[in-house]
């Protein structure tokens, strides 16, 4: 039964195996292991300092694991940056050079990735096209965040990593972005996101990884966590995980 189920499940697009990371004497990740299934939206949750950002940065190769192994699309995360060609990344804060225009930012990323066929749909939907001729320093925080989102989706990535994607967006832009996230999932892309807004996660995510104190406290479907916790929503289920005694 288990074997036939395993065969039916899609192969993980991303596998994190026994990854540990310390900053100085402070352990941040402790033998973290999980898989991210292709074509699904996975949310990484946890309180502050649980290790969410470190996990994301380790997947992107920004931070090196002390031990363990990460495989993305069959390629191990290593010195070779080629595996990142299939990844779209939206950091929490929009970090673009102040004196470049939005259009120049897009051109820079296009040239760096050596990809021409970008997805301009989100630029249109977020009504960014008229803003692209302005220098980043004159853009509002919300406009910068829209540009940040557009950059992540621009090159049709098979894996999207979104760190607090709706933070700083107005409700209209937030709704458009969430619709886009669902739309790329239906087209086969895999999405990893972090968010402190549990209602948003509840509405978007298929799977959950809950990190507590650098360890994986839960990995599985959102529905399963809510059901097994006996709570009536994600907030209660996560609180249940955080308060239950460590096994």
């Amino acid at each position, binding site marked *: 039964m288990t074997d036939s189920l395993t065969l039916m499940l899609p192969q993980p697009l991303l596998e994190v195996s026994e990854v540990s990371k310390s900053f100085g004497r402070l352990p941040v990740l402790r033998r973290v292991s999980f898989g991210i299934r292709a074509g699904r939206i996975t949310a990484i949750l946890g309180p502050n300092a649980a290790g969410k950002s470190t996990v994301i940065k380790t997947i*992107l190769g920004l931070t090196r694991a002390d031990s363990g192994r990460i495989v993305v699309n069959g390629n191990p995360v290593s010195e070779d*940056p*080629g595996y990142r060609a299939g990844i779209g990344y939206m950091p929490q804060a929009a970090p673009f*050079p102040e004196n470049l225009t939005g259009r*120049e930012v897009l051109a*820079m990323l296009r*040239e*760096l990735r050596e990809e021409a066929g970008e997805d301009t749909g989100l630029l249109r939907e977020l009504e960014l096209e008229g803003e692209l001729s302005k220098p980043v320093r004159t853009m509002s925080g919300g406009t910068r965040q829209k540009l940040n989102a557009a950059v992540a989706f621009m090159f049709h990535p098979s894996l999207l990593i979104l760190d607090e994607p709706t933070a700083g967006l107005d409700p209209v832009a937030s709704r458009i972005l969430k619709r886009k996230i669902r739309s790329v999932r239906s087209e086969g892309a895999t999405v990893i996101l972090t968010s402190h807004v549990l209602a948003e996660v509840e509405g978007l995510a298929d799977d959950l990884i809950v990190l507590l104190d650098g360890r994986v406290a839960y990995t599985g479907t959102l529905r399963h966590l809510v059901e097994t916790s006996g709570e009536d929503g994600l907030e209660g289920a996560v609180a249940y995980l955080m308060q239950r005694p460590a096994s």
Partner: protein
Amino acid sequence: MKPGARVLKHELDNLRRSRWVWGYALLLLLLTDALLRFGGGGPRVVVSLLNVVLLFVPLVSLVFGAMYLYGAREFIELLLAQPVRRPALFVGLYGGLSTSLAAAFAIGVGAPFLWGARGDGSVVGPLAMLMMVGVLLTFAFVALAFLIALLFQDRAKGLGAAIAVWFTATALYDALLVFVVTAFSDYPLETPLIGLTLLNPVDLGRMLLLLQVDTAALMGYTGAVFEKFFGSRAGLVLAAGALIGWTILPFWLGLRRFRMKDF
């Protein structure tokens, strides 16, 4: 075009519109113009500019370089999330900032001479040396600034370290040399002093400029020894090589650190 060159191109686009870079150029331009108007002839202005260059260029390069890298941390993270190798990114970032600051220096100091010292042939040699020293000091101290910003995660500590490096190179090191000369005055120190001069880029720049404007005679016997050494072709090449070495060494150490750094 290679990835490093692509990053460099966009960094130059960004920095050529930076108000800080233009402010630096404007400040140097106003200062040089004022010295040319009120400070006498061309070579004397170069001597007056000497201390400005030796104090101001390292300070601006160190502080602006460190602040720039700290400020660009999240942008660097975004670029590192692209399929780009770390060394290419480092080369682009360093090349963009050091070239922009060196260009601002060259415009700020060089432009006033175009209209203020026209037809004065005596200024050409000293001015060329001033330009070369200013540009090389910019490249060396931006490399040091990048190394400092990569070594210190905390911005305040990094800026403190940058100012400490500036103070050491511009004042403390000379105080140390004076102490050595006084303490060992009974010994022939000329050759060791030449060696010690090579260990400080600011002193190297000062020596090259002073010899170019014939003020070595004011420094007595030591000046004569220095003039004999640095005035020769081999000495000049060694001094310029040491200044370039002061760029290559911190750049290489910074690159090594950048390759291994956790962002």
